[in-house]
Each structure stands twice: as C-alpha cells, then as structure tokens.
C-alpha cells in the first residue's frame, strides 16, 4: 500500500497520526482492530505491561475536560511503557498568556514523541499534525463536533468481538446525532468496514441536515428505528442542550427516545446495547437495560484501553519508520544549490 497524500499515513501507507477514520481503507481499520484484539489479552494478564513504547514520551494535551478518555489514554500509554505527561491546559502556561503554538513548540523541544489532543475546536488535532509538529505522532482524542476516532473504533471493536462480520449487521445510532462527534466517525467506520444498514434515530432538531448523503437512513420514531437491529448504540445526551430549543424536557426525551426493556424488545433478541458513557440513567437509557445482559457498556471501557494501545503503538511505529527512512535516505536531505 502506498500513500497518496493522506496526512495520517506515511509514504509507505503506515499509520502515523490517527485523526479520523475518514480516508482510511478497510484494511487499515481491520489492522487497527486486529492489533487491539491482541492488546485485549494483555489486559487480562497479571503483568499488564509491554515494553513497546519504552523510552518514548507521550503528552496528553487536554484543552477540554474528559476524565474517562484522558484516564484510558493515560493507562494505555503506561501499559505500553511510555513516559506520560498529562497537561491540564487550563492550569498551565496558556492561562499565563502563552499561545498554543508556543506551548506545542516547547513540548516538542522536550523531545516528545506523541501528543494525544482533546480540543473543543473542530480540526484542532488536524491543524497540529499538519502545521505545527509533523514529526510528532498526533492522536485525536476528540475535537469539537468533528471527530472522536478512538471512541468510534472501540465501538467497532466491541461490535466485531460480540457480533462478528459487519456486512450482515444492522446498526442503530440513537440520540443527539447533531452535536455528537462520535456519531460521524461511527458512520464512517461502519461504512468502511462494510456495514450497509446504518440507521440514525433521533428528533429532527438533533439530526444534521443532509446526513442521508452519507448512505444512512434517518428515523424519528425509535420503535421503527431499532426494529430488528443487531446493535443499538446510544449517544450521551448533553444535558446543556436541555436549556436550548433543541429539546422540550428530559422526561419527554426519555418517553420518545429512552432505551427501555420494552423498547429493546423491538431489536433482535441477541442485540447488543452500547453507550460511550457517562450514562444519564433515566434520560437516555433505563437502568435495567444499562445493567442488563445485553449491555456492553463496561466491556467498552476495557476495549477502549486496548484500542488506544493499538493506535498509539501503530502511529508511533509509523513515525519511527518515517524518521528512520529520512535518516537513511540521502535523497530526502535538501541541499542548497551550489552557486
């Protein structure tokens, strides 16, 4: 495989940043899932650590709060034996007026090998990868409404481990599609992996315009939306949306779109239920479902660590190979023309 201009890949088509599944091919997504499968096993061992990233420095750059994502990234890096620095940007130099660029250049000067970036602006991770530190591997841990690729891929890992082949599956994604950075990546990843029946379920006010151009169907009615599906992915309802005009009330939302035991009976009897967490019990999902036998919610947390170990080790390997190729290839050295 060779790379024709995808920022996320090396010249040889190896992963070197992980910003979004969009633009990656099926083979690459399957390689990520295969690698993650191997790391799931490590998590079950007594010593949960392997020396793959020993001596490498991973910096968690969280410009936005996220306890769960940050802690699983931190744990993933530590299980790969990397040195991990977690920066809470709000208490760092940026609050003293240092610009983002200066912060990044300083971290780069400390010979950091990887940045895990969470930012409220769409495209932040992409910007850093393309403009600021191209020789540092960038992992997108969520940017604005744009992407949250490791969450989407851990959901794919959950589906593949519990349901198998994507081609024969029907998947419903339920809730606030409009504000979700995960839903977009989930749709991209499901399409790339061969899933043909993808249904987005939610009220019109929370459904993006022209989403059907992505090859999905939209449903305002929950019962018909999840009818006969193999997988129900619930999205977290961001309670701050409650105050705006998007939703009438939490009770009304639960009555129409909350996942209850009765409603889940519309899906296949062996359907699995997923949720990225943290869950709002009684708003998106009933406790009996969240804690029930079809729920994958706690599995997802463990798979999240394995999936993050996979993309971190693959991106680090790609960056290293790229650096190695540059170091040994004299043609890559630019020389000033002689007068």
């Amino acid at each position, binding site marked *: 495989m060779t790379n024709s201009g995808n920022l996320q890949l090396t010249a040889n088509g190896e992963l070197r940043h992980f910003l979004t599944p969009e633009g990656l091919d099926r083979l690459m997504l399957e390689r990520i899932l*295969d690698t993650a*499968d*191997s790391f799931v096993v490590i998590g079950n061992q007594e010593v949960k650590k392997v020396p793959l990233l020993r001596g490498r420095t991973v910096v968690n750059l969280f410009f936005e709060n996220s306890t769960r994502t940050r802690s699983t990234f931190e744990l993933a890096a530590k299980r790969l034996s990397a040195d991990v620095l977690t920066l809470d940007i709000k208490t760092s130099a940026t609050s003293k007026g240092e610009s983002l660029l200066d912060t990044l250049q300083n971290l780069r000067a400390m010979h950091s090998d990887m940045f895990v970036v969470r930012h409220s602006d769409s495209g932040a991770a992409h910007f850093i990868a393309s403009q600021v530190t191209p020789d540092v591997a960038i992992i997108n841990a969520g940017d604005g409404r744009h992407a949250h690729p490791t969450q989407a891929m851990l959901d794919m890992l959950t589906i593949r481990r519990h349901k198998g082949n994507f081609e024969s599956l029907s998947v419903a994604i339920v809730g606030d599609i409009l504000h979700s950075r995960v839903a977009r990546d989930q749709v991209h990843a499901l399409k790339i992996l061969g899933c043909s029946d993808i249904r987005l379920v939610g009220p019109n006010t929370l459904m993006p315009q022209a989403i059907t151009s992505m090859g999905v169907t939209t449903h305002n009615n929950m019962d018909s939306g999840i009818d006969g599906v193999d997988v129900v992915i619930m999205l977290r309802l961001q309670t701050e949306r409650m105050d705006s005009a998007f939703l009438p009330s939490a009770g009304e939302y639960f009555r129409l779109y909350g996942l209850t035991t009765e409603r889940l009976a519309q899906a296949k009897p062996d359907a699995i239920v997923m949720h990225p967490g943290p869950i709002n019990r009684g708003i998106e999902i009933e406790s009996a479902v969240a804690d029930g036998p079809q729920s994958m919610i706690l599995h997802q947390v463990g798979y999240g660590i394995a999936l993050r170990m996979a993309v971190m080790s693959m991106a680090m*390997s790609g960056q290293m190979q790229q650096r*190695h190729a540059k170091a040994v290839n004299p043609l890559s050295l630019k020389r000033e023309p002689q007068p």
Partner: protein
Amino acid sequence: MGATQTLHYPELADTPALVNNLLDQIDQLIFTQKLDQPLVIGIHTGGVWVAKVIAQHLQAPLGQLDIAFYRDDFSKNGLHPQVSPSSLPFNINDRHVLLVDDVLMSGRTIRAAMNELFDFGRPASIKLITLCSVNQRELPIQADACALSLDLEAGQYIQLQGPDTLKLSIIEHANHD
C-alpha cells in the same frame, strides 16, 4: 522467495532424527544439571511445535510465548497485527525453564523472550533449547541443547514447517534485511 534447497545439509532432510537427537541432549542436560521438574515454554510459532514434542517426551507442562510486543525492531519494522497471546498456565517462580525455539539466529528473539518471561516471574534457571542454530549470532546467547549447527550464506534462512509433521528446509530471500 527462492527455491528450497537442502543440498549442503543432508541432515536437514531427516528432521525426525534431529528431533530425537535433541530429546537425547535434553535428557542428558536434565540429568547432569539436576533440573527438577522443568517447565517447557515454546516461542511462537515454530518453537511451540518443537516444545510440544519435548513436553510430551518429558511429561512436563507446556507454555507458549509470543514476543511481538517485546521485539527490538518495532520502530523499524512495525507491529504484526495478529499477535497470538502468550499463555503460561503455571507459575514460573523458582522453576527450571526449558525455553524452546526452532532456529537460533541473531539471538534477538531469545533476548525478547527472556524479557517477557521475567514479566511473569523469576525462574530458578532458563536453558535454551533449539532444533538448529545458524552462524549469525548478534548477541552473546547460545543454546544449551541444539541438534544441528549450520553455516549459511547471507540471504539464506532456515524454516520449520509444521505443526503435525516437522520439516526443516533452507529458503532464500532476494531482499533480506
């Protein structure tokens, strides 16, 4: 990958005889070094096949290691996506371990395997058992029991086929690393 050749090493053709030779050496090693109740651990994949035969012969417990996460060429060659899990269904602390691989070449696999073993515990001793060894050592690691030593030219490799019938052969890579 070029044609298989066994011309210079007729011993290769009779892999079962090599395996028997190895088993004799192991019996001798266990006797002279007084290795009480040794554990047999094979390195994925060829080493596991040989280890299975040894474990059967000794009536000893068998474990397997996949050293992909412990390799030292990860930043150069990347990660193999399908790593089969290491499984040691016993406690290795204070036990004698027979570490088994099919071919000893550079010694880097053995280095990685020993690193991984120490993540599982502290064995009383480790003996290295390989079916054959090649004159391409890059580390000060050598086998305690080995059925055949070979001098190969650059680009030639030894391959073990299995798992049911074990068969050694020499292969040639045009672009060797």
